[in-house]
């Protein structure tokens, strides 16, 4: 291979490219797993926030206040602290505090409240008149959620998933510092602790590419969903 000497010249400290590849895969696995669970938990949570808010379909001010409080508390803790605080919970849930599996619970707990707020905001963008029309047709609250709110807000929700995915990339990189693995781990251990700045450059470039890719794909989906 011609590329190998060139790579060695540019990045003299990186001798195991396979490790870098594995780190990429780990980051993608953490991202995919945590994003799926974040959406799974955050979407109903966002719907709950929307429905129970004052003046909404199922207004329950006390439940709303409680949910909003939990969401706000989780959102105000910096992720790196949240990860440490949650370690016993993580161990209880997945049996380890390390690796991809150990990273996913704090990632989800950190991102789901954030995503839920974004979902709540995009549901509020749905025209109240459309909801009133569905009520006039005899729709139940569940039918309104499934057949009116979610389809009408789908572009906004897709944008929320994009923003959340990008936030999760940042979280996974941070998680690397305390044993989660992935690109953040490499950047921290080799790039920061061992002064191998070429590791830092390569991981940062890879993270930038990942974020760019997510944004482009997300934007494309959003524009497809809002084209009608």
């Amino acid at each position, binding site marked *: 291979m011609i590329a190998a000497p060139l790579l060695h010249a540019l990045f003299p400290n990186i001798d195991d490219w396979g490790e870098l590849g594995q780190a990429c895969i780990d980051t993608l696995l953490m991202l995919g797993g945590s994003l799926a669970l974040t959406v799974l938990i955050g979407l109903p949570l966002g719907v709950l926030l929307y429905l129970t808010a004052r003046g909404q379909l199922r207004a329950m001010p006390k439940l709303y206040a409680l949910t909003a409080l939990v969401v706000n508390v989780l959102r105000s803790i910096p992720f790196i602290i949240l990860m440490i605080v949650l370690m016993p919970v993580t161990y209880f849930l997945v049996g380890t505090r390390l690796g991809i599996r150990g990273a996913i619970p704090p990632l989800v707990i950190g991102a789901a409240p954030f995503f839920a707020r974004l979902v709540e905001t995009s549901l509020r963008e749905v025209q109240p008149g*459309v909801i009133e029309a*569905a009520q006039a*047709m*005899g729709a139940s609250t569940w039918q309104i959620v499934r*057949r*009116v709110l979610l*389809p009408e807000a789908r572009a906004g929700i897709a944008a929320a998933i994009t923003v959340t995915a990008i936030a999760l990339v940042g979280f996974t990189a941070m998680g690397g510092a305390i044993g989660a693995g992935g690109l953040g781990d490499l950047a921290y251990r080799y790039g920061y602790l061992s002064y191998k700045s070429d590791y830092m450059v390569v991981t940062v470039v890879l993270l930038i590419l990942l974020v760019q890719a997510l944004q482009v794909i997300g934007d494309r989906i959003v524009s497809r969903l809002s084209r*009608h």
Partner: protein
Amino acid sequence: MIRFLDVHKSYRVEGRDVPALAPFNLDIDDGEVFGIIGHSGAGKSTLLRMINLLERPSGGRVLIGDVDMTALEEAALRLQRQRIGMIFQHFNLLGSQTVADNVAFPLKLAGTRDAAAIRARVDELLARVGLTAHADKYPSQLSGGQKQRVGIARALANRPSILLCDEATSALDPQTTGDVLELLAEINRELKLTIVLITHEMDVVRRICDRVAVLDAGRMVELGAVADVFLHPQHPTTRRFVEEALPEETAAGEAPYARVQGRILRLSFRGETTWTPSLSRVMRETGVDFNLLAGRIDRIKQMPYGQLTLALEGINVDAALQALRAAGIEIEEMTR
């Protein structure tokens, strides 16, 4: 029949009860087109929404046929609502769904699973409102009039017995308004559907309603057949609405007839009396001279009418008035 019994409504604003509608009774007959006219804030939107309980009355009962809507549990109320269509000023279509899916929506809500049956019903409805060619378009690709037609098709999907129209033509231009009103009148005739509409335009009432209620600041100040209310408005608010529909009557400004000689009278011809030349016959026979000051000849729904403001001069004016009344013409003496 839709029946309001001692219904009233007030809203709680900052701990105080603010009355929106004073207690009233009202019967709306099966198959009629009933108009509710009022300025914004008069309570007409609240009144309309109390029929399908989108607004719950603060007191009193709302009956549809022999069903007490105000006494229904949520599930039973939802079933009743499927039998009441509603269209809106801003159409309120699902932007994420095609025209066909919007029309199919109430069928799916009602639990129809059979895709072929849904398809057939949607095709039938789109043909009725003249939108067959637009079935696969999205609402944002349609004009206002077309959107309202989708709204009408959607409202009719579950074969309702009542259609509620919430300012259905207020966002449309005059030409489109005419088309939509014509479609509503056609639906009323062919499907024997009761239509209750709210509007702030007397012209809408004149064109399609049988009866009208006038709301002013939460009170029903006038109620009657459209021709009676339109030709002989009693309440000042009603007069203003009628004058808005007849701009030429008010164009002259203050004391318009100050310089006119003779007695000023307003003659209303309606229905049969418009077909005979009574005015010219009576004037010739009594030798009275008339000066035509203002007038309008038009239709109230299907019925032709004329309303002329005349100044009469001559010794036989009283005899002339008697003869005109005998010919079925309604006469009001006007003040200068």
